């Protein structure tokens, strides 16, 4: 039920110029405005003076330089001034006073949007005094593990462990005496470990590694001793003794053509972790190419179950059957990976919803990615599919099965474009195109809608105020004409407002869930999902209010 109340104009989330890099000239950017953000900061019931509050742009970039900062006065109040309109993240930055143990808020602060000249108050933070965890890490000969890093995991009521991303990473490093010291840790239950989790990938494993070992000296997570610290407490003697350096192993073999057994030279190859059910490849790593004899070599492989493959590259037209292997305690050799001639797809992409030649010309900046599902694990594809100026596209090296096309997401130019439909000979194949081995499918039509419509949303609580300690993520899904495609994800600001932009006309389903949508911290919390459907016309602005009743059931 879209509401059509003519409310006050909401300022859209302005995408200010990305504050990245280290150029000196941009440190004081965005200080030319007149808006301000203020609030009290407390530790328990006491005010917290001398706490620095930093304000950064909320534009999904981590590790930015703050655009403004302020320090709390003797009454524990801060005021950050001179901000121009926009959307920001406000965080208290103090090494000793920290936000309480909460997966969401660990050092990340609150999202606040301001309009020009607006003075926002009440952005408060309740901090706790962080504690200290310190100890010594040595091997079984008493030698310190200099330069290695410890890892901290939080333990919940059910003894499940979650990795804690500490924002002051230098303190994770073990010094020349073997000592580490973590400070500013909110009260709670933790385990400390050092070393690599078995089954992790990467060339860094070459030549040996320490298996992940928990305090006081066990590689079994369930046996890890739990450290409980209260506010401001120092836990000392949290030592870890690791076993001897473990070995990593080498895997060798060849990649060959399935039909002839001849070597497949210059193939980009790699390996990945096989999922527990053996059906999909989880993380992958690839960077090297086979030699003239089709030989490959993987180094630094830790014990675990993996598959080796060659990456599907459109130019080569061949796809590989990934070969599983297991490393226990010795090198593996003689593997043979076979490649088959792949199928290909080609067609024309068209943009609907605009006649503007400039916008139509942007089609050559868009790219597709191809997603293939199959009975077994499928190897990664190396390149996105380019769209030419005339809209034509082609991709090869497809293995038989179902193929789905998506628009590649991480391009700034992509805003406003959405792939809403794929047709083959007039038939809607958006949900997947069936491909036979080696088939050449042409004449596809990919319809990309261009939209400039917007949904201006407001979240309201059925009872009381919006909760202050966590955000809400709103995702929009296009559901017209039987298609279900996710189109956007945004986080509501501190007043529950959100804006979804660049939408083509259609029927949408908005889903609201608790969580954060920031890179590195994007998490949806378990809990209820709230749903609202809305129709959007072309070049329109629709206002929506979604009422959230935390006590009601899920729709």
């Amino acid at each position, binding site marked *: 039920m879209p509401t059509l109340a003519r409310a006050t104009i909401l300022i859209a989330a302005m995408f200010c110029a990305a504050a990245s890099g280290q150029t*000196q000239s941009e440190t004081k950017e965005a200080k030319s405005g007149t808006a301000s953000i203020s609030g009290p900061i407390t530790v328990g019931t006491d005010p917290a003076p001398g706490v620095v509050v930093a304000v950064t742009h909320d534009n999904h970039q981590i*590790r930015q330089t703050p655009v403004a900062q302020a320090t709390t006065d003797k009454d524990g109040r801060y005021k950050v001034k001179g901000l121009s309109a926009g959307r920001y993240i406000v965080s208290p930055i103090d090494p000793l006073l920290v936000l309480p143990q909460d997966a969401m808020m660990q050092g990340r602060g609150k999202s606040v949007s301001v309009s020009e000249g607006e003075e926002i108050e009440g952005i408060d933070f309740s901090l706790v005094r962080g504690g200290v965890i310190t100890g010594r890490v040595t091997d079984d000969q008493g030698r310190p593990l200099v330069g290695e890093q410890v890892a901290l995991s939080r333990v919940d009521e059910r003894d499940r462990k979650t990795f804690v991303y500490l924002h002051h990473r230098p303190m994770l490093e073990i010094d020349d005496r073997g000592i580490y010291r973590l400070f500013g840790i909110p009260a709670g239950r933790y385990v400390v470990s050092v070393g690599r989790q078995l089954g992790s990938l990467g060339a860094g494993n070459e030549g040996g590694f320490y298996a992940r070992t928990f305090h006081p000296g066990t590689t079994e997570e369930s046996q890890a001793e739990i450290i409980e610290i209260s506010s401001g407490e120092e836990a000392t003697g949290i030592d870890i003794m690791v076993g001897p350096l473990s070995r990593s192993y080498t895997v060798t073999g060849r990649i060959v053509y399935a039909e002839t057994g001849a070597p497949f030279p210059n193939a980009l190859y790699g390996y990945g972790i096989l999922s527990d059910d053996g059906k999909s490849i989880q993380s992958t790593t690839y960077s090297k190419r086979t030699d003239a004899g089709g030989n490959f070599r993987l180094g630094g492989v830790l014990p675990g179950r993996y598959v080796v493959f060659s990456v599907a590259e459109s130019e080569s037209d061949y796809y590989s059957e990934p070969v599983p292997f297991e490393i226990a305690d010795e090198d593996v050799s003689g593997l043979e990976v076979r490649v088959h001639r792949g199928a290909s797809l080609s067609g024309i992409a068209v943009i609907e919803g605009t006649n503007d030649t400039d916008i139509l010309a942007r089609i050559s900046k868009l790219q597709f990615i191809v997603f293939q599902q199959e009975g077994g694990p499928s190897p990664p594809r190396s390149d996105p599919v380019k769209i030419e100026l005339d809209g034509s596209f082609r991709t090869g090296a497809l293995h038989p099965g179902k193929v789905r096309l998506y628009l590649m997401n991480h391009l700034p130019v992509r805003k406003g474009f959405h792939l809403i439909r794929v047709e083959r000979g007039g038939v809607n194949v958006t949900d997947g195109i069936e491909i036979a081995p080696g088939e050449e499918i042409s004449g596809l039509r990919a319809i990309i809608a261009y939209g400039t419509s917007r949904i201006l949303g407001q979240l309201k609580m059925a009872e009381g105020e919006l909760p202050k300690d966590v955000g809400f993520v709103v995702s929009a899904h296009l559901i017209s004409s039987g298609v279900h495609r996710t189109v956007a994800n945004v986080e509501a600001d501190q007043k529950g407002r959100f804006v979804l932009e660049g939408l083509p006309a259609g029927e949408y389903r908005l889903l609201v869930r608790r969580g954060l949508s920031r890179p590195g911290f994007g998490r949806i919390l378990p809990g209820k999902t709230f749903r609202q459907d809305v129709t959007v016309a072309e070049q329109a602005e629709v206002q929506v209010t979604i009422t959230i009743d935390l006590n009601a059931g899920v729709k």
Partner: protein
Amino acid sequence: MKRLLSVGFLSLLIALASASASGAGSSSSQDPAESSSNKAGQRNADSIEGRVISDDGQPIVKAQIWVIEAGQSSRTVRWTKTDREGKFRAEGLAPMQYRISADAPGYLLSNESSRPKSYSPGDFVNITMIKGGVITGTVTDSSGKPVVAVPVSIIFVRTSDGRSLGGVGGAARPRYTDDRGVYRIYGLSGGSYLVMAGMRPGSNAGLAVRYRDHSPTYFPSATRETAQEVRVDKGREVTGIDIRYRAERGYSISGTVSGAVPSDTESGHVSLTLLYASSGLTEAMASISGKDDSFTFDNVTEGEYELIAQSNLMSGENGVSAPVRVKVSGADVKGLKVILTPFSSIAGRTLLEPLQDAALKSGCRDEREGLLRNMRVIVRPDSVIERRDQPPPPGRPRSVPARIDDKGEFEIQRLHAELYRVETQLWGRSWYVRSITLPGGGQNRRPFDVARNGIALKAGERVKRLTVTIAEGAASLDGQVLPSVEGNQLPARLRVHLVPSDREHADDTLRFAEARVRNDDSFIFSNLAPGRYLIVIDQASASDEESMEIWQRHAAWDGVERERLRRLAEACSTAIELQPCRSISHYKLFYAPPQSNKNGPSKKGQ
């Protein structure tokens, strides 16, 4: 017999073929990461093995090892780590020479192990590492409270033997103080350091954002100029290096650079150096590249500075700025305009004049072979006092040596608008410099005597056709200075001068030579033009000799000095005649102090 031989030959061929195939295989896959595996069947002939231990004999586990092609390419062909016994093996190496490099956190290569050494497949490498030095202390504020999570950096200023480095360099990344304000920096090589608490410009803030607006504080509680050096030795820990953090507001210095700057089409950058005006120590450096022509230095303490810029382009005209004086006092300095003027250059050639007279020539060693290759032409800015133990700040005029190419030509670039003196460094003993000239202009076409006058370069000037003429038939002289009265002490800072006494060479700057009398009272001259000379001993002034590290300005460059020396020389009558390719050794020179009538040495020669 024949059959046996051919079978043997065939198997040798096969062995060679498979060896090269495996070598080609592993190198073409461009795989630098060979782990140390212990395949039993692997031949050692294509591996280099080794062990890394610390100086107390313990194995160093998980040390990083690189195998690098020795020679020009310096390509890293393998990297691996040591195992639980400190051992490593790099396999599948092509038969050639390699260098092995090792790195372990907190450790440094011992002196022995850091000497450049080459290894071949089949060798066993023993590497010893020593624990680096440690500096640790506490950072507190003016009320004694710990300063938490402030970055602490070090600047390496002097080696253990006292050689200064004058640069801004420091540890790869700063360490941070913990919740008690304690910091610990380990793995240091021996030498002297400055320790600095605070943010360096351009660094990412993170938790340290609270210190963003302060200029850094140096141990013990000082600015860069008054900072105290901390001496560390390998394997030793220096504690109590406590810093009282001043939390002084730092200011910014900003402006633009124009002139000979990189354009859009050229790659390169402009480097800017901010120096303390009084001491010449570098405070900070910055770099601009691309279209940006503006620069900013942040976190600068109040004081007086000099700013120098110079460009470093891949191609095209490079330039340098005259130093810009900047005073920071209570406010940011904005809008500085730094103008780069193009560098100048000097190009020229050497002319050789071998001896024609066979009789004379017979006494000379034939040094033609390496003569040009080892010779250097050095230009030195006349007004700059250079220290031998310390490089001048970037952007300042400095002495520049040039090599001579196969055609006998040389070119010296990146020179400033300064008066430069031209010197040479000759190899061997048979040749001497006869003249250094530029073609003359004007009516009489006499060449311009650069040896006497130097070259006064203008900005952007390209001087060509400098001619350095060297002639065969040089003489040498070495000997000892003794007090004329036995038992007397010789004064310090004595110098021996040779003054030409042949009339036609009387004012030839190149024939004036000077040598320092060393601690053992000896002196040595070489590459002298043959002819007659008078010998004078005088004493250098105290300031000249304040440090042996300063390049001496030749007395002969100054007309007044030449005159003084000539008068001194004529007052005494110690004369000597030097023959082509003859060497006079163990020459005894007697020194009488100036109070006595004899105003110079008397000779008892050979």
